[in-house]
């Protein structure tokens, strides 16, 4: 299994595509960070708001990158015709899928490491950095991994990489809808339903309660329950999807 993990890391993390993605992400982070000291409206933000904005951007970028990566992992193997050789190895389907999950995890960990200098500079002069990093790895990680697992499941169920990517992005956008709505709109109807169930909304509420409202551990845990439930659902979905991982019909 370790050789398969190494292969995934080599193919996705240290490949030319992978390193260019890291470079693009760092450029995005630099642009955003620099705007906090150069854009008139952003200079006005309090330091905690600045860090919350950066965290939202980091989580959004991480989810997008990891779902694109995850949704092409199995269907990509199928399209390239390499899935057959992979399934013929003595490794179980679950282990094959797990090695792909580790690949995505390493990818995300590198993105999170890239973000640390930016967080250091944005939390400068305060004691927010440990809280920020705790949030990143305790709430951000389960959220990003949940989306990656679901995109991997789509990639396993749907034979086309394009369709799997599209499905994953649509799922992300639906869960992220409340972020674009006003507080009044979120109080009723479909928006309220999505807002109360969305793991993305829950993660943002957790961030606010942790950093701004400084609520108790119990309240923060309760805020993050939808994220943990989403992780559980994603694990179950991927487990069932891994059993369906097979050659194309007729192969």
């Amino acid at each position: 299994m370790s050789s398969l993990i190494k292969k995934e890391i080599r193919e996705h993390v240290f490949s030319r595509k992978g390193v260019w993605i890291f470079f693009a992400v760092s450029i995005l982070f630099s642009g955003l960070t620099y705007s906090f000291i150069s854009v008139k409206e952003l200079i006005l933000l309090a330091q905690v708001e600045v860090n919350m904005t950066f965290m939202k951007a980091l989580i959004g970028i991480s989810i997008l990158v990891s779902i694109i990566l995850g949704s092409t992992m199995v269907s990509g193997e199928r399209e390239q015709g390499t899935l057959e050789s992979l399934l013929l190895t003595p490794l179980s389907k679950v282990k094959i899928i797990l090695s792909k999950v580790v690949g995505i995890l390493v990818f995300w960990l590198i993105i999170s490491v890239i973000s640390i200098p930016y967080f250091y500079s944005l939390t400068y002069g305060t004691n927010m950095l440990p809280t920020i990093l705790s949030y990143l790895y305790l709430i951000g990680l389960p959220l990003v991994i949940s989306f990656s697992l679901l995109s991997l499941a789509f990639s396993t169920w749907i034979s086309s990489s394009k369709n799997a990517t599209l499905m994953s992005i649509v799922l992300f956008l639906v869960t992220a809808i409340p972020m674009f709505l006003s507080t009044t709109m979120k109080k009723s109807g479909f928006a309220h339903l999505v807002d109360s169930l969305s793991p993305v909304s829950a993660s943002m509420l957790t961030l606010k309660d942790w950093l701004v409202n400084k609520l108790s551990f119990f309240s923060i845990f309760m805020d993050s329950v939808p994220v943990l439930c989403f992780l559980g659902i994603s694990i179950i979905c991927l487990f069932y999807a891994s059993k369906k991982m097979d050659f194309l019909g007729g192969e």
Partner: protein
Amino acid sequence: MVKKAGIILAILLGFVITGQSAFAMEQPNVEVKVISPNQVKDYPGKETTVKAQVTNHTNQSIKDLVVYITMTDMGKKWTVNLEDYSADKPEQVKELGPGETKEVSLPIRFVYTSNYYLYVTAASADSLDIYSSNGIPIVIMGNTKIDPTTIQVVSIATPLIILFLVVLNFIKNRKKRIA
């Protein structure tokens, strides 16, 4: 004796006339004075109302007097866009009678971190003369401890380090392919 008295009288008269004209030079037709605040030292977002007094020192009434806030950014050595500070709307004084004083209230919301001089200016449609009050110091402090130099260093150095690793990775892969 009469001659001496005439000379003294002429000298005294000269003093009176000169004194009056000097007084007239010091006293403008319209005087603008900021009553409150004396100074402001606060964070961005601070809202305040500048109260100013406009006095007509002439013996004629002045019509359509426009009184407004003006600020100079002494930190950046710039003028400021008063629209950003919600202070672009002037107060109008329809008529200011001879010797009359009127008080105007001008709201402002300080938004950007810097050091400013704030003063109130009055202009009338009747004359091209513009009258301004003395300045009051305004210090708007930054509400973050973010160090711009650290941000600049991180924003430039991080992508450069990653670019260096990308190039290193590219060279390594190329060497492998050649071997």
